[in-house]
């Protein structure tokens, strides 16, 4: 049973997310068929180009996710737009971002093995990506520290903004450190129309996937927070009856 189709539970699903999930599923299926079978081999990269159809979209998704985390955190920290929903979106987006950054690193190193003959090079883009991955794992760990919802939101919001400032610092320091970085490999403009179309399908379906995942994850976080708050009523009743006959 495919979990994406399994919408009838209605836990965090609405008609909108169900439709979105269906569209995402179709997009991903299409991407797999085009990417693996229908699109031609590249003249230079041969079959390795097929990895790019999923690698580039997942990298795009991860970066998008971290930008959203930063924006939502800024929104929370700014008094006039303060709401826990923004904090939950920041957390949801960061979790999805970490997942896809991990996927990006795996697919990227497999692509590197084909194209460069090595899984890893200390090129600025790769290194920055690896640092981002670890930084946001730390961010997620801080979200799990406990305390009140507001405390979680405040701490992790500050951390997300610091991470956002940190990214260019890491990027530029690594770039100066190893000036001989790899050439931009995708932008060489030798892709055929069908290849570009496949890449386009990948970008669109991954973007849809991102929205779907974050909506669900954010609602799960809202449910968790509500369980915490609802637990309070029960805990209060327990507390008040302490020492009663």
């Amino acid at each position, binding site marked *: 049973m495919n979990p994406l189709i399994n919408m009838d539970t209605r836990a965090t699903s609405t008609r909108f997310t169900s439709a979105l999930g269906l569209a995402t599923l179709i997009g991903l299926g299409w991407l797999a068929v085009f990417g693996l079978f229908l699109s031609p081999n590249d003249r230079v990269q041969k079959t390795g180009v097929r990895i790019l159809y999923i690698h580039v979209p997942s990298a795009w998704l991860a970066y998008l996710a971290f930008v959203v985390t930063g924006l939502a955190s800024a929104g929370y920290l700014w008094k006039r737009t303060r709401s826990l929903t923004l904090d939950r979106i920041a957390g949801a987006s960061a979790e999805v971002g970490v997942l896809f950054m991990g996927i990006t690193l795996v697919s990227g190193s497999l692509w590197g093995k084909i194209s460069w003959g090595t899984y890893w090079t200390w090129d600025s883009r790769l290194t920055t990506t690896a640092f981002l991955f670890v930084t946001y794992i730390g961010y997620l*760990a801080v979200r799990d520290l406990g305390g009140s919802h507001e405390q979680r939101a405040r701490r992790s919001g500050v951390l997300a903004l610091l991470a956002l400032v940190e990214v260019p610092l890491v990027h530029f320091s690594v770039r100066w450190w190893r000036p001989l970085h790899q050439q931009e490999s995708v932008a060489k403009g030798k892709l055929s129309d069908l290849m570009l179309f496949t890449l386009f399908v990948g970008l669109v379906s991954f973007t849809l996937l991102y929205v779907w995942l974050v909506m669900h994850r954010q609602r799960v976080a809202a449910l968790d927070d509500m369980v915490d708050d609802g637990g309070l009523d029960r805990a209060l009743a327990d507390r008040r009856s302490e020492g009663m006959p």
Partner: protein
Amino acid sequence: MWAITRLLAGKDLRVEMRSRVIINQVVPFAALMMVMFAFALDSDTVLARVAPGLVWLAAMFSLLVIVQRSFALEAADGALDALRVAGANAGGIFLGKALALAAQLAVLEVILLGAALVLYNSHIVGSGIALLVGTYFTATAGLAFVGTLYGGLAVGAKGRETLLPLLMLPVVAPVLIGATRATEAALGTNGATATDGWPWVGLLTLFAVVFGVGGTLSFGSLIDE
């Protein structure tokens, strides 16, 4: 804010003067690291080449220990609570802790650099002294700010001993890179010259400013419940 900064920095240094934990425990630990690096790398030419990197790597691991110690002091008998009840300005607390941390780290780094010169057979070139001093100040400031910021975040949290390295090490990576390259330039390692080093000092300065300002503004919301 400045009054509390001065008070707290003075207090932390006085604690160190009386307890000598950094001198008696952290400095030997750092020196030991330098010796262990030599065992692991086992080659005089390699050691001379990577000496600047090892100095800053050892400084960074020592920083973790010093930060733990610095905030264990505040947590041990509820002093941090008492500071909050005293209405102490959080930005002032941040700067005070960072200042004391920087002073302790600065002493440690001199010892580490001395160890590298003696053990790894490195040399300071005359034209590199200004660069070395510049690197030393900016990198130390950056490390102290980051250490205080994340130390304050982790204080009182469960599992803080393991959380702190996870949070801190990725963030100080630019300092490791920048300080190492600049120190290489100052020592003339791999034929680098002093002029190669100054852009790195610029990066280190930017780093210190970003985390100094960020920490001063946000420290209150990090340590409050």
